[in-house]
């Protein structure tokens, strides 16, 4: 009898110690619960196409225009040849001749939550040409097919570095089939890098609504098809930060929203 009693005493101590240990772990590894979205399951609001308006604007740049920074592609002669001796320069931080900014991602940041949008069936194409991504800034909807092709006779490697979506990293040899990917969650912006040619950079904005545009070589943008309402418009740039403005769009109204960035 004594034997078993005596056996359980140290046993109990060990067990107690283990419980204490696991309790300890729980206490130290406590993490904030992921914030759950508060949106209730409400029936989607339909959009009346006869009332939609649009937003246009210009992304201007104040200050001294930085000189373009040439890309050194020496390590891969294929890339150098593709630019026929003219070379290429970095697109981040680039300023247009008219003092405006290209490649700003302008989007409806808030105000469109009540609408739902079907996943578009058309592909968003990301090309690799001359060891540059074309386009440099790309907007897609959640779940939309991103179709990645290569026009270069050299091996590329596509490596998006998201915060909220799944990270992946795949190589694409010359002549290899296109890569098709989707992003499951909203994210502004996912940088995309090529680990073979590390100057290569693209940005993918994953949106829940289709109200976005990228400023062009004249610095202008247009967001079409906006139903009347109050919106927060965001303008994202790779090097000059992000700005936002509130705007009210009436039925069939054409609003102008301009942004000005400083270096």
């Amino acid at each position, binding site marked *: 009898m004594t034997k078993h009693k005596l056996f359980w*005493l140290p046993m109990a101590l*060990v067990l107690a110690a283990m419980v204490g240990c696991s309790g300890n772990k729980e*206490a130290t590894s406590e993490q904030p619960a992921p914030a759950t979205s508060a949106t209730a399951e409400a029936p989607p609001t339909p959009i009346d196409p006869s009332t939609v308006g649009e937003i246009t604007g210009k992304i201007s740049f104040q200050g001294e225009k930085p000189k373009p920074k040439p890309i050194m592609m020496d390590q891969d002669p294929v890339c150098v040849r593709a630019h026929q001796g003219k070379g290429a320069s970095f697109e981040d931080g680039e300023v247009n001749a008219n003092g405006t900014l290209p490649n700003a991602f302008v989007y409806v940041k808030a105000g469109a939550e009540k609408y739902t949008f079907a996943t578009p069936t058309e592909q968003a194409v990301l090309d690799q040409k001359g060891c540059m991504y074309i386009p440099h800034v790309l907007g897609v909807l959640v779940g939309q097919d991103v179709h990645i092709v290569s026009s270069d006779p050299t091996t590329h490697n596509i490596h998006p570095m998201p915060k909220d979506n799944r990270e992946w990293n795949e190589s694409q040899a010359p002549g290899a089939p296109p890569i098709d990917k989707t992003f499951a969650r909203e994210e502004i912006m996912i940088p995309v890098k090529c680990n073979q040619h590390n100057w290569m950079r693209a940005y993918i904005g994953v949106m829940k609504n289709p109200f976005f545009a990228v400023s062009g070589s004249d610095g202008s943008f247009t967001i079409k098809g906006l139903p009347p309402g109050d919106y927060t418009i965001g303008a994202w740039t790779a090097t000059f930060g992000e700005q936002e403005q509130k705007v009210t769009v009436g039925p069939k109204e054409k609003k102008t929203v301009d942004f000005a960035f400083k270096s």
Partner: protein
Amino acid sequence: MSPEVLTPVRPEEVALDKGSGPSGGGDGGFGGDSPDPSERAWSVPARAYRTGMYMALAAITMLFAAFTSAMVVRHGVSNDWAHTTLPRVLWLNTAVLLASSATLELAKRGLWSNESRRFIVWLDVTAALGATFIAGQLVAWKQLAARGVYLATNPSSSFFYLLTAAHGLHLLGGVIALLYLLLRARRILAHSGSGAPGRTAVEVTAIYWHFMDALWVYILILLMTRM
């Protein structure tokens, strides 16, 4: 005709059957195989178990030597080392562990002189002290955590947790071995002549236990040293 007559049982089948019987298992972290007389057709000399244990201890020594050299190098390679002040409870734990070595010796004497009560009680006390030590180490961890010192806080705290955890796990193996001996205490006492498997098991466990004890003192000195 019964099948037994047709197919004589081959010796290996018999032996395999025996092998798969209740083994008592659980010699966890320590090196000796369970020496149960009923399972062996031949005898493995007791010194083989001692050799096995010494080899296991050699491997454990190498493990901690590697940790130590990593610690010395890591200290020397960068200037981010901040000494981790040891929680006071470690002194208590040390005393408990040293006491357990003494009680284990008492238990061994009990077995040598075949005093069953003395053997069982002291063995039990040893296991309890071992368990107390592990619990005490966990308390030390909690105290450190309460001070905001975690595994990744500083290289010195990394080594503190690493060495105490590595030693604690080994000692846990020792406690399990002691519990196993306790479960089999009556059988061990029944065949306790010199060279009997039960006696060898106790002896080998004691070697392991004393080694863990000495190892702890070494670790304590290592952790105390302000390099």
